[in-house]
């Protein structure tokens, strides 16, 4: 549309500005985490590593991080174990109500998390699940199973049915077809689903805020509580660690998708 003249440079400048706007908040956290001040100020009066040191001496955040990692891992395993069979049934079976079931199972993604959190809080209080591991796990399954289901159903949908039919015609019974053909071909989708589930669980705040208890909290919730009460560069240091962790996960995911080539493609 804009191909030449000053218009093009104006457009490029606008795009650059918008990119800065979009990425600025995450980028600025990095320099602030090295601030020597005890409050947020730009530019910092000096540079130091003291907030990273402070982070290590912060027992609450450390425990919360550990909880988040454990929770994310359990939820990832469970969400995949629950979503995979459902995805197979929904994309390979033809039975009445199939579309309605799919819609119902992904419905939680359409509703505000604040409403889901409140609804869970009220039920969980009655069942004594507030501030408990089973409570947190169930709450995270509520929002991660739909994501996993969506990714896996899409993955299964893109696998050509004729490959499974070929295996069947060569004498493989249904279970053999699944484990020898379908599952190996789904690997990239499974890895993507696992990564998304873990990230969603690891970053979830709103629903978790309703479910956590005084003795069991997650990192995003602990961070939220911390920022609510005071804003010092400690959070910047933690944020930097979280961003780096997420980045690592994304790179691993990228490698995993590269794995697709190893599975489907070049031998040697």
């Amino acid at each position: 549309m804009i191909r030449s003249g000053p218009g093009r440079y104006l457009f490029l400048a606008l795009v650059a500005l918008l990119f800065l706007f979009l990425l600025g908040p995450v980028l600025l956290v990095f320099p602030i985490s090295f601030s020597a001040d005890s409050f947020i100020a730009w530019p910092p009066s000096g540079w130091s590593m003291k907030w990273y040191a402070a982070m290590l001496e912060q027992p609450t955040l450390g425990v919360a991080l550990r909880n988040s990692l454990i929770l994310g891992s359990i939820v990832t395993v469970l969400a995949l174990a629950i979503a995979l069979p459902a995805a197979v049934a929904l994309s390979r079976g033809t039975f009445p109500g199939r579309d309605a079931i799919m819609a119902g199972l992904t419905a939680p993604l359409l509703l505000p998390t604040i409403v889901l959190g409140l609804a869970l809080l009220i039920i969980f209080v009655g069942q004594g699940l507030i501030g408990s591991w089973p409570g947190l796990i169930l709450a995270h399954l509520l929002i991660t199973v739909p994501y996993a289901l969506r990714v896996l159903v899409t993955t299964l949908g893109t696998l050509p049915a004729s490959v499974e039919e070929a295996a069947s015609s060569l004498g493989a019974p249904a279970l053999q077809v699944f484990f020898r053909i379908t599952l190996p071909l789904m690997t990239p989708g499974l890895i993507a689903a696992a990564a998304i589930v873990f990230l969603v669980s690891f970053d979830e705040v709103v629903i978790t805020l309703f479910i956590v208890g005084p003795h069991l909290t997650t990192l995003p919730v602990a961070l939220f509580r911390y920022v609510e009460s005071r804003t010092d560069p400690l959070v910047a240091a933690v944020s930097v660690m979280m961003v780096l962790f997420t980045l690592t996960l994304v790179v691993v995911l990228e490698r995993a998708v590269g794995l697709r080539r190893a599975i489907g493609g070049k031998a040697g």
Partner: protein
Amino acid sequence: MAAEAAPPHLELHGLEKRFGATRAVQALSLSVGKGELIGLLGPSGCGKTTTLRMIGGLMPATDGRIIVAGRDVTALPPHRRDMGIVFQNYALFPHMDVAQNLSFGLEMRKIPADERQQRVQRALAMVRLEAFAARKPRELSGGQQQRVALARALVIEPSILLLDEPLSNLDANLREEMRNEIRDIQQRLGITAVFVTHDQAEALAICDRIAVMRAGVLEQLGTPFEIYERPANEFVAGFVGRVNRAAGHRGADGRLLLGDVVLQGTGHAGAGPVTIMIRPHRIRLTDTPPEGIGWNSATGTVTRRTFVGDLLSIEVALGPASLLVEQHTFAGAVVAGPGDAVRLAWRAEDTLVFPASPAGVFPAPPAGVFPA
């Protein structure tokens, strides 16, 4: 064509597939002899692939029975039917190399490893791909993938080989080469095979018999010769090979008229409007038409002449009709141009007469000729 005499190996009895109110395949009955290669031919949507998928067990039949060597297999799942299927897109397992693809069906049959290896080797040799055993499917060309698919379907020594448009993804040159290779291997193994295609030339070239289908109905079953020379109806005549189509009339006295030209023809003898079909290459342009019984001749005006290399394609207006005449280009051929009056001659047995089809059911293409 000795296969025709063989006892039936595959029988379809009243095979039917309905999707809701649509009858995709209608009461199809057909028997295939041992070692016979039968083609299911028809335009897309005629039910040929649906028929194949029902034979292979990939789709349940709504009604009817499928018998293989006297045994009813209608209710069996595909993995217990013992049929080798070559899919249109080959459906090779992308995560396995060529040898693993071939070995898969043998593993399912619990064949011991050393025998498996031998049979895979033999199958690879059969399709001349010994050197490609360790390749992944995506590292192969289209023709090579096609041969792997064929070898994979055959290595299990199935009772029947099913081929679903196996050549449609190949380019023209390769298609001809592969169809001959498929035919050679099929004859060498003496295996009963069902070959689905929409390409009439392919079907004519390699099938022992052809079943022409339209809208779920079997229109004609016969040898390629019968299908081409004695089409059972207007649809078959039009679908297989190129043909001129003209509206004519047969009087109560039995005289066949194209405009005001009296013709001798074969086929439908009833009085009333008829459709007359003549293949373009069976019409001669000649100054001295053969006279007498068995020959038709008429005079027309050339309206267009197209040079297509080995053929001259000449359109001739003949009364109300326009006939396409194809003439091989050779020295001494009559060369007529637009506006010239020419004499045409063709044999009575090449003049196919069918009852006129109701309007709309089978619309006439613009040039009066069905494309190949």
